[in-house]
């Protein structure tokens, strides 16, 4: 018996000896296929673009992409550039939809494959018209960048960027017009995330907020101050309706907490009563 116990003790104590960074090995061995994002990273696009054979200016594209909002949302190389990321021989084949790098004036249509509403409004805007007629107006990349694309925010509009082509007054007026709605949307997003963390998944409200945000930002791309101001009230009403439902849910959570505190106190009271009765039967 003593020998058996000693063997178990030695075995248990010696286990941590093997503990040297085996997390990756474990995760790879215990999942029959690599995880989604790893699959994206294992693409032939990345394999070539990170190799020494690639031109230096194209070699840092994967690193930039990994910092982007697209990466966080599982948007990979082939989603924009086409081709086949899993088949090296067909990776850049036009038969697999490869379009490569778009020309400067082709960028809006390139991005607009997914951002349809924004493309429509951009094309009607001064920016879009300038690009169409002169070939030199700002395109999507001018403000959003190419591979290291971040989540859109009002910070994109700032004096140094806008004054490269024109004065800042109009851009400033648009930024001010956008501010309230953007602020409201930001707060609502935080509230919905907070509710989710507390166990309430507001699917409908989250979708409605996403739709409102997309439509509002689409509208912004017209860069028409009056149009934005005219529609602000409409968007504000939509956001207020979501906000009212979110506030109701917060109130409901307060009720839930108070109700369970009430139940807890009932059981504490019962425990005290039982304890008193129990003491009478001690002897």
């Amino acid at each position, binding site marked *: 018996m003593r020998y058996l116990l000693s063997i178990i003790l030695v075995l248990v104590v010696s286990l941590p000896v093997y503990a040297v960074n*085996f997390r990756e090995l474990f995760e790879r061995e215990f999942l029959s296929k690599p995880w989604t994002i790893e699959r994206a990273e294992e693409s032939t696009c990345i394999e070539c673009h990170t190799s020494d054979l690639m031109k230096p200016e194209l070699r840092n594209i994967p690193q930039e992409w990994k910092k982007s909002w697209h990466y966080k949302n599982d948007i990979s190389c082939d989603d924009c550039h086409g081709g086949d990321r899993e088949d090296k021989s067909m990776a850049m084949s036009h038969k697999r939809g490869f379009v490569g790098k778009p020309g400067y004036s082709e960028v809006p249509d390139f991005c607009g494959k997914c951002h349809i509403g924004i493309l429509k409004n951009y094309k009607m805007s001064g920016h879009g018209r300038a690009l169409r007629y002169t070939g030199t107006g700002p395109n999507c990349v001018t403000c959003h960048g190419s591979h290291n694309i971040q989540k859109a925010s009002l910070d994109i509009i700032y004096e140094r960027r806008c004054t490269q082509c024109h004065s800042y007054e109009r851009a400033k007026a648009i930024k001010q017009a956008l501010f309230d709605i953007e602020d409201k949307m930001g707060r609502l997003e935080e509230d919905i995330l907070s509710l989710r963390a507390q166990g309430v998944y507001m699917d409908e409200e989250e979708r409605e907020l996403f739709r409102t945000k997309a439509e509002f930002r689409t509208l912004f791309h017209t860069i028409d101050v009056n149009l934005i101001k005219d529609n602000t009230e409409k968007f504000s009403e939509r956001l207020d309706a979501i906000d009212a439902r979110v506030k109701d849910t917060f109130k409901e959570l307060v009720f839930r*907490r108070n109700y*369970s505190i009430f139940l807890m106190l009932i*059981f504490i009271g019962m425990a005290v009563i039982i304890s008193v009765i*129990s003491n009478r039967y001690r002897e």
Partner: protein
Amino acid sequence: MWKTLRDGIDLRIGLKDLIETKLKGYRIPKDTNIFYTLGIVALFAYMIMAVTGYFLLIYYIPHTEQAFKSVQLIMTKVPYGWLVRMIHIVASSLMLIVVSLHMISIFIMGSYKRPREVTWFLGGLLMLITLTFCLSGYLLPWSQRSYWATTVTTSIPTAFPVIGDYITRLLRGGEHVTGVTLSRFFALHVAFLPPIFLGIVGLHIFFIWRIGLSTPGFSKSAQHEQPWTGYRRTTYPESYPFYPNFVLKEALMITIFFALTFFIISFMPNFFMPEAANTPANPFKTPVHVKPEWYFLAPYQLLRLIPNKLFGITIQILLIILFLLWPFIDRSEERNILKRPLLLVLFLVLLGLWVVLTIWGRYS
């Protein structure tokens, strides 16, 4: 009215006699402590799980498209559905803590020794079934956390050569965790496990009732125990009746269990339900940190630490077999663990290791 009803029942089944002989006549040793009530608290927790589970079944839909939505419907639209689900979630974790404390106290008090080896074995089986209940129930909300935790957990059998892949496919109903897995786990959770569990609980209680409660190995009365040579009902030099004395102690612990459940629901509602548990499952988006529930963190962390996965899984199975059959392996007559320093050290090391691995797994 009440007297008429009571007399009516007594006339037919002899209720008074039943209370006198089976409840008041059933004796409990005076050396017992509060840990002896943990068994009934665990049983009561199971009953809570069953009752809340029945209510959840009314609205839950075991389909990948509907499971998460139906759970959210319970949480937001069904009157007091949130309360039923929160009790189901919190009580399940507390129940595992109670069951673990029950097993630990039985071990420390040496109550698994002859003639109670089978009682321990059945209790061990019940703990394993409880963990299977938790594993199968965990997938049902079809959340991001439950989906990926199940993906990791069901991958573990692949460590076995030859049959490993087959076991994983059998659990999942295919290569990946899909709607088939959800159906299988649902059936396991609500149809297959409950009758097996109830059968073993019945046997477990029968053994306890037939043999009688043990006394702690380190108590005075344990030192005067006669060697067990043949069946006899355990008698105690000093004892008190099961009803009302012991029943009141049990009732006290059950109310404390309820109070603790509502304390967690009131002040720490997310303690057993992190954010990923409230996000719908997305098989195409792996979360940054995939982790099983807290009760599987220790074995999970152990598997991560051991480089060879077959070795890792084998050592865990050996530990489970050792745990189940311990009373048959440890044949020493000595019940007082304080007089067995090697066993005490081994037990404390294992317990400490389990706690450290759980915390390590949580924060690694």
